[in-house]
């Protein structure tokens, strides 16, 4: 049986089924128009009719009972052309809603929160350390021990005058006997007879931050000659220890941050593999209709980038809220004497603009990490599949 026989046999049904609209559609099909076979032209009408014999069910009739009034949403929808709406949002090729997807968002939220808290803590430590170091290195102290046979007040005066003559020192403040005793009160209490005790005296030297460091060796030599009981403490040893401790804390924090980010990357890689296993059929179909690996990787990357960005922003947002709450609580706590001491030692919990920027950056770092890890995982998996 030839095709012409078939056409003639079923031609009635073909002509019966065709509508003018469908006929136009056939005529404007470029494949049909470009066909060089002369028989093609004769078959156009029949071709369109073949499939139309099984018609789509008609649209349900409009309700005749109660009239459905347009809602505001309907009006808004009608105001946007249908095609434009579709163009704006095509369905993602990787299904958006899945249990593994939601679990991944939660994992990313938690990981980003931890990473942001770590980054914020590192920033707090770094800021506090810099503040301590600056305070400590801006001052030096001359300590003058009492010794029998020497006039302590005269020694204090001599030491102060020697210090005033040194370049780079812009302030010399000798502590009075009462002030020196008050410094010991927190440790020894106020009930002790300080008059009968050999309480050393100190002279605090403020350094000019704009000038170069004073000649400490010369000052020490002159002090040793004029006031043998005086010692000059430039706090360098203390400052060095402090810097080492703060540096170690920052390093620990950065290591924790790196570990959290690595764990996040691994979680994303596993989630991607899981998602790919669940969408293997989709990937197969995409390959068979001519999708390149790059296209499939782009689809997965877009999917996980949005997921990572969403999770990252939520996690960082929670971290920002946590730091704001900690800052508010610490400012209330600072009103107490204990709070002041803690603040003097550890600084405040208030994160500066640089800290908040770091926390927000973590969200984008996590999103970027998600995109990179996803792409690599997808390519590796596609290689396995193909």
């Amino acid at each position, binding site marked *: 049986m030839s095709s012409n026989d078939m056409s003639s046999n079923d031609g009635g049904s073909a002509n019966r089924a065709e509508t003018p609209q469908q006929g136009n*559609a056939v005529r404007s099909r470029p494949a049909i128009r470009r066909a060089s076979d002369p028989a093609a032209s004769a078959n156009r009408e*029949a071709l369109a009719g*073949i499939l139309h014999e099984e018609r789509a069910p008609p649209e349900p009739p409009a309700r005749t009972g109660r009239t459905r009034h347009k809602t505001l949403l309907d009006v808004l929808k009608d105001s946007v052309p249908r095609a434009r709406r579709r163009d704006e949002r*095509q369905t993602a090729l990787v*299904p958006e809603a899945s249990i593994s997807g939601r679990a991944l968002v939660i994992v990313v939220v938690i990981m980003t929160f931890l990473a942001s808290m770590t980054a914020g803590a590192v920033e707090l430590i770094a800021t506090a350390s810099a503040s301590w170091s600056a305070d400590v290195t801006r001052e030096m102290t001359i300590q003058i021990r009492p010794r029998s046979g020497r006039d302590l007040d005269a020694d204090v005066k001599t030491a102060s005058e020697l210090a005033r003559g040194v370049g780079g020192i812009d302030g010399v403040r000798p502590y009075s006997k009462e002030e020196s005793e008050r410094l010991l009160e927190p440790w020894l209490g106020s009930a002790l007879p300080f008059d009968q005790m050999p309480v050393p005296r100190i002279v605090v030297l403020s350094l000019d931050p704009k000038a170069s460091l004073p000649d400490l060796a010369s000052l020490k030599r002159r002090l040793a000659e004029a006031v043998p009981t005086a010692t000059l403490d430039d706090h360098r040893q203390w400052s060095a220890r402090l810097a080492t401790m703060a540096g170690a804390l920052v390093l620990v924090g950065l290591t924790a941050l790196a570990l959290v980010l690595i764990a996040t990357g691994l979680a994303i890689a596993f989630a991607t593999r899981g998602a790919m296993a669940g969408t293997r059929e989709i990937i197969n179909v995409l390959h068979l209709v001519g999708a390149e690996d790059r296209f499939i990787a782009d689809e997965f990357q877009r999917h996980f980038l949005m997921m990572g960005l969403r999770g990252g922003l939520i996690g960082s947002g929670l971290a920002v809220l946590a730091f704001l709450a900690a800052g508010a609580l610490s400012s209330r706590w600072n009103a107490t004497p204990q709070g002041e001491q803690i603040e003097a030692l550890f600084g405040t919990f208030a994160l500066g603009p640089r800290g908040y920027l770091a926390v927000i950056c973590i969200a984008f770092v996590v999103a970027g990490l998600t995109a990179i890890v996803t792409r690599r995982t997808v390519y590796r998996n596609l290689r396995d599949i193909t």
Partner: protein
Amino acid sequence: MRHSGCSNLVRFENVGLRYGMGPEVLRDISFHIAPRSFQFLTGPSGSGKTTLLKLVLQQLRPTRGTITLFSRNSASITQDDLANLRRRIGIIFQDFRLLDHLTTYENVALPLRVQGKSESSYRNEVVELLRWVGLGERMHVPPIVLSGGEKQRAAIARALIVRPELLLADEPTGNVDPPLARRLLRLFVELNKLGTAIVLATHDFTLMDQFDARRIVLAEGQVHVFE
């Protein structure tokens, strides 16, 4: 539509296929598919029709022999080249393989979308084709609500949207009643007249008896061609 001149679209030369260390499921397969030709690929269930189509699509690689696809030796085809070659082939699966999370419109537009074309560039063409296959009113519903015949038409539309040079149809009439099977056969015959080479895999002899065409018969792992 692109044309490959006189050279064959597909050529198999002494192709063999085995899975792992098992026996050869296909052996010494040699045949060709010419441009604008029509052939049935037939054989009993389990004879390897789908496997043969997978070899044409390069979903499977032969363990021996040579497959030439659009004048390209399959051994030298890279993954990206393969994607480009597959864009010249339309494939209709027995189980349709429509993506349930996309609408019918998006399913049919999929081959164009994966080529990176913007939706506005192909929208009219897809809508036109959907109307042409009688799914104009169903284009915004997911395939899950379509009837079997509608799914079949959507799958056909997806295969045709790129105006393929070669159309592979794997048991396209396996899930439909005889009248629809006859209409589908007529459609493939008419498409063939318009220039598309057709390979219609079926084991339905009643269907094959309705149209006199070349038959590639698979039996016991070997192929016999009846011109």
